[in-house]
């Protein structure tokens, strides 16, 4: 019978220990996430009293721009949208109706925000990220398995011999 070497035994114990810690962290996050994590924009505006006069960040889509009053109205979240009013008196960007934006600003009241910065997002960006991420998977696998192969006997990855 093949007995594990003391080094391998230590590694097995370490793998189990690290796995237990990781699983503990995953479940800790699962149970505590909603109580502790930075809330999404829907929650921020629904509980505006709690976050009043604090800096918030959120994505939105411009519905209308009132250049005379230097404000814009924007939709946030998924349908049915929450409509918010954003003061853009300090913003120098050129904004257009329908722009997908990312706002950093101070929550000033019920569904009102004074913008400090507005970044315009390309509407096709999410699609681009998804599409351009696909070739990365075979690329990573190629780079990894070009150098390493799995040895079933020792249950470890071993380096491929160069010029073999």
């Amino acid at each position, binding site marked *: 019978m093949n007995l594990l070497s003391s080094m391998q035994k230590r590694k097995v114990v370490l793998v189990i220990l690290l796995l237990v810690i990781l699983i503990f962290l995953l479940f800790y*996050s699962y149970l505590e996430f909603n109580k502790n994590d930075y809330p999404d924009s829907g929650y921020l505006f629904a509980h505006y009293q709690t976050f009043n006069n604090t800096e918030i960040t959120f994505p939105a889509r411009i519905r209308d721009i009132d250049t005379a009053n230097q404000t814009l109205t924007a939709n946030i979240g998924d349908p049915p949208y929450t409509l918010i009013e954003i003061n853009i008196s300090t913003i120098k960007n050129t904004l257009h109706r329908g722009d997908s934006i990312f706002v950093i600003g101070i929550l000033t009241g019920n569904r009102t925000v004074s913008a400090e910065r507005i970044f315009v*997002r390309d509407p096709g960006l999410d699609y681009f990220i998804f599409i351009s991420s696909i070739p990365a998977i075979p690329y990573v696998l190629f780079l990894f398995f070009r150098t390493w192969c799995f040895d079933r006997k020792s249950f470890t990855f071993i380096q491929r011999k160069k010029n073999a």
Partner: protein
Amino acid sequence: MPDWITHTTIGWIAGKVIKMEVGLVVLGSILPDLVKINHIALWFGMDLYSLFNPFHTPVGSLLVAGILALFFVDSIKVFLALSIGITTHFLLDFFLIGLTKGIQFLFPFSWERWRFNEIMIDYRITALAIIAAVLGYIYWYYKDSKKGRTEYKTR
């Protein structure tokens, strides 16, 4: 978060610069995005982001790197290479806004998220990373071939 091409390209450059096993650094550069397993859960109508969130934190990614590294003979060297990749991932995510709420650098001790609110993620970041990698590839290719010629001459 930028796309995986940007992450892996930056990982490749980092691996080349610090002369570590590039395959491992590149693997490390996308390890934090194990959080994307949630997309599989979403197909089945479950949002388990809160469960998988620790994968996208330094502690969670380093734990995964630690577990992976133990399946190699030289575990410490492998762990270091994976950690470099993980670092490049979080640096990129930290400096770019638009897709994540920030990085929970101190999770599980703090839930606070940090982000450098200056650079908006867009196509130019990917283009810049690819251009840098191509230039790097040409540089290292010529450097290696020059080194090879010098070794041949001295024999």
